[in-house]
């Protein structure tokens, strides 16, 4: 059986009526302040309806200037979480895009993909709300067109036409040359053929 002892009484620096006055006054002052705030206009912006502009440095969802991109894969190699994937076919200088996707389940918006880009064509955007009910929606496709644009097709067609014309011209020139040679030495081709 242990003996019990008294604890020391806590010290107070205010008198009884001082405490009462302090409590009443501080409550009244505080309620005055909250009452004033009750009638001030709220600072809230109603988010999905109106959005605050984000800062220029903000790192949101990427956007790609696809016509500048040269499919060098520098951004994909720089990505620390390997969330960038792309595919394209080269037609000479033109690119036939298959996809350029970023998996936002992995992406941590570190901006490391932006710096290595030689053409400065991938940027961090201002979009930040990526809300979905389906996880597969997080695999975002950044290309604005796939395959070739009409312009590119036209250019390729022109290039090929030019090439074909060139080829045809070359063939024609060759044929002409041959014809000229044959005219100069008519006996030789027959000998050569045999």
């Amino acid at each position, binding site marked *: 059986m242990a003996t019990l002892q008294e604890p020391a009484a806590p010290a107070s620096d205010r008198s009884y009526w001082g*405490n*009462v006055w302090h*409590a*009443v006054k501080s*409550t009244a002052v*505080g*309620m005055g*302040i*909250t*009452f004033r*705030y*009750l*009638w*001030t206009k*709220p*600072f*809230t912006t*109603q988010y999905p309806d109106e959005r605050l502009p984000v800062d220029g440095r903000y790192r949101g969802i990427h956007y790609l200037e696809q016509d500048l991109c040269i499919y060098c894969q520098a951004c994909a190699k720089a990505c620390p979480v390997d969330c960038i994937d792309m595919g394209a076919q080269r037609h000479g200088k033109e690119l036939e895009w298959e996809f350029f996707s970023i998996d936002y389940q992995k992406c941590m918006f570190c901006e490391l993909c932006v710096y290595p880009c030689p053409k400065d064509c991938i940027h961090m955007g201002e979009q930040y709300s990526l809300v979905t009910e389906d996880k597969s929606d997080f695999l975002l496709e950044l290309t604005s067109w796939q395959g070739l644009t009409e312009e590119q097709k036209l250019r390729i067609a022109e290039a090929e036409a030019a090439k074909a014309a060139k080829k045809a011209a070359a063939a024609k020139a060759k044929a002409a040359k041959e014809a000229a040679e044959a005219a100069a030495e008519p006996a030789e081709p027959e000998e050569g053929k045999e």
Partner: protein
Amino acid sequence: MSAALPPAAAAPQGNGLTELLGGLLPDGLPFWALALTGAVVSFAIIFAFIAVLAMFATWLERKVAGHIQVRYGPMRTGAWHGWAQALADGVKLLIKEDLVLTSADKPLFKLAPMVVLSTALAAFVALPFGPNAIVADLDLGIYFIIAISSITTFGVIMAGWGSNNKWSLYGAMREAAQVASYEIPLGLSLMMPVMYFGSLSLNHAGAMQSGWYGMHWYVFSDAFWIAIPSFALFFTAALAETKRAPFDLPESESELVAGFHTEYSGIRFAFFFMEEYAAMYLMSAVGTALWFGAWNFPGLSLLEGTVLHAPLAVAAFVTKSLLLVFVMMWVRWTVPRIRIDQVMALGYKYLTPLCLLMILLAASWEWVKAIAFGA
């Protein structure tokens, strides 16, 4: 009984509801059938009132909280300022799964919300909403309300013990300590208006505060210098009794998860929620009835005898009570929660002695009045 007694309390007798039912029901019914019908109908009315009130008050609380913190509160459910938020919450609570823990003390766990809500409902019986709009005009209306609302504590302790969760139990113990302490100043602070009106009946108090165009309120009476501090004492004790901030230690969410109703979900949680708002309204209504003139307001007496009188009186009473409910919310979002030892010190060292002092002053004032003006 000696002859020198003051005249007996001349409370307006009768109950509008019972009279109405007596007119509607066929003649020749036995008394108990009439009484039973009256009880069921008044229960339905009170329950509907509390349910609507709880919905409105949750919405109001969020709006008040929001605007005091310079934001909007709910805005999106329903077209105008999120008015349907409380409805949506109610539907959600009804649909949610009603969990009962396997380790809980099941009878207590299931009984607790019913005890809590039924006591809140029972206390509304003695509230006068208008001159005759009272379910039971009891002689000891105020005493009845205090007594019945003290049982609410039991539901809370049952919930805390039955949940078999240490946070719930801490909450319940705090509730037991707090409510048992604050019942004393609450009861004592009601004595000042009781001494002024000379009756424990709220209906009588309301009737005494009519006159002079409905402005004979206790706070405007000759004893206003007693009425105002005594109302402050009453309001503080009522805040503690209803577990509202800054006295919301039984459910202080930053320390005790949610206190005694941590383990409740679905409809049982909704019962606790309804009880909280019902108790807030109840205390505000008692304050209104005793200090702020019950259903009286300037100009109401001009309409005496017209059809408009009763609805306007009820509307005035409900509006004044809701204003006090708003003050409770206002206090909640102003004053930080205080420590349990501060709660005890406030109750025992400050409120109780100050209430006793006020009682002494009120009694002396009645005596002085009797000597000076003759009574």
